[in-house]
């Protein structure tokens, strides 16, 4: 056969040789080979080689048994693991083989990622406390700005020389300190006053508050100046404290840090939001508030824990321990969230204040952190027991050890969020500290009216008397609207109202809070959280928004 007519390639000959051609094609090749010496020679060469190589057996001797045994043992282990797949494995298997297989395609992966980004951004923007995203959390100046001129309202004036107490406040949206919180049933509240009377008093207070709010700040410049002053003050303290901590005195700071960082809140489920992430803000807020007016010499300036990543946690000299322990049940946090909040040992500020309730958290008072231990290595005994309050140096503040309230601060009223660990920084004279001192003295004038009311509100709240607590918070605010913690008083009132299911009243107070303290990001955020949570609760369980009768609450708590 000539080259022109030789149409069979060698690859095709191989197919023919190994029988991989269909019958008709094989017949064609066979006919061709008979008439084509070139293909015949090629094919014969292949066949000859194959004949020789086929002298080798297709398979060698079997591998030794130890290889097989080892493989079987491994297979058994793997099979046992697969027989009980974990949740993730099952989900993965379902995604791979189930109807949602398309979800694993790149297109849907990209779409899913985009949806997550957009959704996450929306959640962050919608759930973050107002002002949180627009101003640094470490700028508490607005709350301390005394630029407003409130209406002179004096309700339940505090006795002169009333002790300044460290009043830790539970997280907003959280139940009272003891007992079991059943989302479906509200808090175990026992109103100290009839609801109608409470509402009436609130109505009066609302009117006064609105009148006060209408009196807007004197001037914008004044407000700005005040904010800048507070900011610089805070920055100076923070730096000084940081330097102390780095120099080995961090133990003081850590010791005086009022909140164990292990505190966490997880509320999700029906609320539709996990506060674990941004929810730490809620804890931080409560910690900030709970730190109480610790240092007698602390100037004003609502140092917030809100940005505890940036600034040292405010001290809580009066706050021995505070921990919010939320047991998030499976699936639905709304169904059963057990909350236990330790009442910190503190001097009883008023007759209404109940004794602190011992809880499991008491044993976790101020666990030594790394800096505690590290700093303790370098601190001299004198320093440890010196002017600064170290851990364990405050037995007198324990109600059990010293029921009588401590003497009032000699120089300046305590501030809720001021840390005693800052005292060393304050001892060094500086312009900033002097300014802070001036501010603190100015605020001291309002403290006698504010502090007792606030303390009573806290006590009532801890005791579960939310109606009374809300009223006292309101009175505290009205008595001293310029006080650094006045926004917190409002926020506390909002929280109590929200927990009682009085969402309309809470909204009203929230409006006041927003209008009066537009820059009190932490307070506003905390109030917002309380409102959101209770609204969600009301949506999911309409009955939960109503305060339950004590009897039923008691039943449920059991």
């Amino acid at each position, binding site marked *: 056969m000539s080259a022109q007519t030789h149409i069979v390639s060698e690859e095709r000959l191989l197919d023919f040789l190994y029988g991989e051609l269909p019958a008709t094609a094989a017949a064609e090749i066979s006919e061709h080979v008979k008439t084509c010496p070139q293909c015949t020679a090629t094919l014969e060469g292949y066949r000859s080689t194959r004949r020789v190589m086929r002298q*080798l057996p297709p398979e*060698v001797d079997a*591998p030794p048994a130890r290889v097989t045994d*080892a493989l079987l043992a491994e297979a058994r282990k793997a099979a046992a693991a697969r027989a009980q797949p974990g949740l993730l494995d099952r989900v993965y298997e379902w995604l791979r083989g189930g109807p949602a297989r398309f979800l694993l395609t790149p297109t849907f992966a990209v779409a899913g990622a985009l949806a997550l980004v957009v959704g996450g951004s929306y959640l962050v923007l919608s759930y973050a406390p107002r002002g949180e995203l627009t101003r640094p959390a470490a700028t508490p100046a607005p709350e301390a700005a005394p630029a407003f001129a409130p209406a002179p309202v004096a309700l339940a004036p505090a006795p002169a020389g009333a002790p300044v107490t460290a009043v830790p406040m539970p997280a907003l949206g959280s139940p009272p300190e003891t007992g079991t919180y059943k989302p479906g049933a509200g808090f175990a509240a026992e109103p100290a006053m009839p609801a109608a009377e409470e509402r009436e008093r609130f109505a009066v207070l609302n009117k006064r508050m609105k009148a006060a709010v209408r009196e807007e700040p004197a001037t914008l410049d004044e407000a700005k100046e005040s904010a800048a002053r507070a900011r610089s003050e805070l920055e100076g303290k923070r730096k000084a404290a940081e330097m102390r901590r780095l120099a080995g005195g961090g133990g003081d700071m850590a010791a005086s840090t009022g909140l164990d960082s292990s505190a966490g809140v997880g509320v999700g489920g029906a609320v539709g939001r996990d506060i674990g992430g941004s929810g730490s803000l809620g804890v931080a807020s409560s910690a900030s508030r709970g730190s109480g007016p610790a240092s007698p010499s602390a100037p004003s300036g609502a140092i917030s824990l809100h940005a505890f990543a940036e600034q040292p946690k405010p001290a809580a000299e009066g706050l021995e321990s505070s921990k919010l322990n939320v047991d998030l049940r499976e699936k639905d946090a709304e169904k059963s969230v057990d909350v236990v909040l330790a009442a910190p040992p503190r001097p009883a500020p008023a007759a209404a204040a109940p004794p602190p309730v011992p809880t499991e958290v008491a044993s976790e008072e101020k666990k030594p952190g790394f800096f505690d231990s590290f700093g303790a290595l370098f601190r001299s005994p004198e320093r440890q027991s010196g002017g600064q309050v170290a851990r364990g140096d405050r037995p007198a503040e324990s109600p059990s050890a010293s029921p009588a309230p401590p003497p009032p601060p000699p120089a300046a009223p305590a501030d809720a969020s001021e840390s005693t660990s800052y005292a060393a920084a304050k001892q060094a004279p500086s312009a900033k500290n002097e300014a802070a001192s001036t501010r603190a003295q100015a605020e001291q004038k309002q403290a006698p009216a504010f502090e007792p009311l606030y303390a009573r509100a806290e006590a009532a709240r801890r005791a579960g008397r939310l109606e009374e607590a809300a009223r006292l918070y309101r009175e505290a605010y009205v008595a001293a609207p310029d006080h650094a913690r006045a926004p917190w008083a409002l926020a506390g009132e909002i929280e109590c109202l929200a927990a009682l299911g009085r969402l309309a009243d809470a909204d009203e107070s929230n409006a006041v809070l927003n209008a009066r303290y537009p820059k009190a990001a932490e307070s506003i955020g905390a109030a917002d959280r309380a409102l959101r949570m209770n609204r969600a609760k009301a949506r999911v369980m309409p009955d939960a928004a109503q305060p339950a009768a004590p009897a039923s609450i008691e039943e449920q708590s059991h």
Partner: protein
Amino acid sequence: VQTEQPDDTLMRRFREGDAPAFEVLLKRHQRAVFSFIVRMVGDRTRAEDLLQETFLRVIRGAAEWEQKAKFTTWLYTIARNICVDAMRRESFRKADSLDRVAPSDGDPDGAPVGDAMAGAAVGADRAAYNARVRPALEQALQRLPAEQREVFVLREYSGAPFKEIAEMTGVPENTVKSRMRYALEGLRKALEAMGITGDMADDDEVAAAAVRTVGG
């Protein structure tokens, strides 16, 4: 009953936690895969390790295994990749020259295999023939380039069609056939150099040659 089940069914069962299914698969395929590996790396001890590695990958990859291709295609792909990696990592012992193979088998004169074959005594039986020729064939195979050797072994001994070999090796089918062609050519030359021809390799021809030798 289990041994009659197809590979895919057994693999699916193993993926769901049925260890005996894997045992069936192992017994069904380990010897063939082991043969492939031995012929690829030319070292039985090393091949045992590689066989173990191959089936370990099967065990660990069972969760990801999908019935997109034949189980054997997947299995030989794993084995082939492991062999390629092993050959890249290590410098395997090259086959000695055929002139040195014969003495190692006990022939003191060191005659080439072909000569020994041609001069096989009247009483030469099949076992003696195999004992002499098989090492030579193994060595001829080892002299092939790896890419030709794997194609030849897979097609000739494992029985994989060219299309599946293309899947296993990740090259086009025509490339596989080209490599097969080169492998056959290379083997023919190597065998001719050893004095082994297809006629001699054939049982009948060998017998006839033996008869001629005796009669001559």
